[in-house]
């Protein structure tokens, strides 16, 4: 039983997953069985115990797949598994299955038996589906072990006799239609009786078939997760459960990456610079120039934590994290145009909701540039208040901001524009944006300054913005500074 229900902000799973980029991960999953497909369609965060179990089994299967103990052929075999769960439900409640259902049940049993044969001795016994030999025997009285079915003559001597008579009758050039109809009727009646008997015998095995379905589903889920881990170079997260001793536990993520972005860069033969981060309980402010990847950091942290709680390997070289009750990400959803409320309104409502959750339970709260759409004077006051309030909770909070004078116990800065690189002004702005990662060092470093990096004008220069604007901007800055000194 789950002690607490895991929740997210935005509360709509689809929105949340899109914001953190998990929708992309979902497109990479290739479950083979109808059970696995259903599982991944309605993914639910796991309990702490289940996470540990999933992660251990994924570790095992990553090894088995990499060493080709579990081959692609074996995995492909799972594609032949048919969904018989409805028929099993019907068996359990004493209903009679028809021939099509029995065919599928037989096919299921034969396919699973085949899979078991291929993987037994290679995976721990407790992962193997139970043997269904009794079920197969009922559905395969002629012991052909072929995945086909009809009401075999072998089921009843009487049926065999009737069919024989029928056949002989048809062979005659002229025969009594009435006699044939009578035989057919007897045959149908007997077939119905046999279907009833078979169903009754099978219902005794309905629990074991259910168990088989559960085991097949679990194998499919673990194999799917293991294949994702291999393909995306994910790693096993260490995850601890919250107890009092962990009050000072820091979430530690080493060299995390955003799988979608990494893939995009790879397709343009560019490198992705992974980023490491330590998040302590309370608030950490993240500052950095525009285009320095702060939003990506927030989204990726959320993705790492979410995937860990779903029992997946995570996109980082190493991750030590804690079992949490909720994840909140308050960032722009690029696909959803704001409806009704202004951007400020909906943002602040979400922050409010995140705060009330953070007070009651352990959360990861990620806020991208709060109050960015309102005036800087009030924004400064609001953000400082938000920082204070979240600092008083036991949650892990990351806030990205461009505002000066935000006071927080911990502050990280994206290193930003590389100093050693000279910008050639001849380069086209579009080209520059496309190659921006060449000019930026995405590393996060601790910072004690209360101001934010001033690189906006530098970036404007980089982009070849109107020189008058740049010149005036610089002049304005100087006036502003000298005024300040005068005031002092």
């Amino acid at each position, binding site marked *: 039983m789950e002690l607490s229900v895991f929740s997210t902000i935005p509360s709509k799973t689809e929105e949340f997953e899109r914001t953190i980029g998990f929708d992309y991960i979902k497109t990479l999953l290739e479950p083979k069985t*109808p059970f696995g497909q259903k599982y991944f369609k309605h993914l639910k965060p796991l309990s702490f115990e289940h996470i540990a179990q999933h992660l251990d089994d994924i570790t095992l299967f990553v090894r088995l797949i990499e060493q080709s103990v579990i081959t692609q052929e074996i995995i492909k075999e799972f594609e032949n598994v*048919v969904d018989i769960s409805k028929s099993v439900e019907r068996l359990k409640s004493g209903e009679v299955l*028809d*021939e*099509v259902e029995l*065919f*599928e049940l037989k096919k299921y049993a034969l396919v699973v038996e085949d899979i078991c044969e291929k993987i037994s001795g290679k995976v721990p016994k407790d992962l193997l589906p139970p043997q269904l030999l009794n079920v197969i025997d009922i559905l395969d009285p002629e012991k052909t072990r072929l995945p*086909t*079915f*009809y*009401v075999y003559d072998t089921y009843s001597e009487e049926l065999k006799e009737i*069919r024989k008579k*029928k*056949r002989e009758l*048809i062979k005659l050039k002229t025969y009594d239609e009435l006699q044939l109809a009578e035989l*057919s009727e007897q*045959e149908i009646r007997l077939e119905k009786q046999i279907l009833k008997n078979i169903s009754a015998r099978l219902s005794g095995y309905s629990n074991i078939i259910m168990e088989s379905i559960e085991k097949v589903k679990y194998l499919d889920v673990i194999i799917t997760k293991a294949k994702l881990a291999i393909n995306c170079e994910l790693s096993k997260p260490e995850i601890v459960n919250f107890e009092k001793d962990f009050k000072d536990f820091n979430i530690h993520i080493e060299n995390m990456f955003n799988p979608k972005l990494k893939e995009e860069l790879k397709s343009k033969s560019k490198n992705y610079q992974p980023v490491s981060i330590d998040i302590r309980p309370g608030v950490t402010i993240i500052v950095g120039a525009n285009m320095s990847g702060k939003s990506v950091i927030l989204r990726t942290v959320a993705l790492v934590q979410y995937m860990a709680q779903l029992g997946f390997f995570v996109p980082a070289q190493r991750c030590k994290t804690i079992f949490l009750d909720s994840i909140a990400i308050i960032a722009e959803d690029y696909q959803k145009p704001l409806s009704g409320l202004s951007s400020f309104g909906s943002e602040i409502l979400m922050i409010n909701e995140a705060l009330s959750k953070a007070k009651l339970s352990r959360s990861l709260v990620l806020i991208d540039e709060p109050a960015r759409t309102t005036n800087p004077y009030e924004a400064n006051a609001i953000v400082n208040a938000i920082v204070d309030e979240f600092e008083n909770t036991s949650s892990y909070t990351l806030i990205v901001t461009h505002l000066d004078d935000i006071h927080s116990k911990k502050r990280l800065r994206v290193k930003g524009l590389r100093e050693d690189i000279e910008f050639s002004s001849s380069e086209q702005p579009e080209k520059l944006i496309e190659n921006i990662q060449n000019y930026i060092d995405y590393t996060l470093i601790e910072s004690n300054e209360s101001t934010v990096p001033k690189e906006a004008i530098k970036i404007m220069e980089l982009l070849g913005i109107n020189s008058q604007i740049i010149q005036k901007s610089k002049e304005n800055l100087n006036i502003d500074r000298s005024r300040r000194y005068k005031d002092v």
Partner: protein
Amino acid sequence: MDDKSVLIQSVLNAKILAIIGLEKNTGKTETLNFIVKCLTGKKNIALTSIGTDGEEKDIVFGSPKPSVYVDEGQIYTTTEFFFKRRTVLSEILYVSTQTTPTGRLIIARACEPGKVILSGPPTTAWMKEVATYLSNIADLVIIDGALSRFSQAKPSIADSVILATGAAYSLEKREIIRHTKYVYNLCTLDVFEKQIPSEIVNSNHICTFDGREWKKTNVSSALNLQKLKEIEGGFSCIYIPGALTDSVLRTVYDKQIIVRDFTKIFISYEYFVKYRPNIKVLEKTNVIGITVNPYSPTGYLIDSESIINELRKVINIPIIDVRR
């Protein structure tokens, strides 16, 4: 050898045969039954049919869809709705996950002789899949094509085709002869003799040839006539991946036109006669025979013999009356 024996000989050489009716009730099922009876014992046959929409139409006309005769051991496809009402003892070999309007597709083997109702995949892609599956377990696959849906006769699916015509198309003899000849001509259009680069063949865009090299245009559908007219350059030859319709023909009639196969041609007889276009195909359809059904669904009977004689003057393949 008479036409019937020649036809059966051709059928014996086929791997996947499609029977295409020029109109509903032109005797496809009679043709099918005739062939099945002739081949019983000689070949392991699998029977399939396109969709089930034929039945609904039959109900409208009030003429019951004749069921198809299968012999013991023969394979057939049907759907759940019809399988549950079958009278022939059948072993289930395969049940699809996809569904048709009448339930999932079932492939079964008849354990005794009798009559079954065929039903099958409603789409070309699915039909290709099923036909391939069947050809792996049977020597000959016969597709009962329904309602003039020529797409099932694609050379990429069926290697041989029988055209079924008859009184259901028209009660006017001349009309039947004219239309049958026309469809036969389309089926037997010549294959384009020159090698075409594979990226052109697989492209979804209209391509042009100026005598030296192929050029891919940015026009994806020929139905966009305005764009079609704007294609520049003095080309002599045009490849149209989609439908070749009357209006498209009007725009490009003076060029050499290439289409994938005859199922892409939707030109009316009148336009064909008016423009006499030079059309070539990438894949030729192998028509091995024509069957004529003298009965119309409304109860009329026409004189099939004179039709057959008339057709024989211009068509040099077996032509038979299925009712004789």
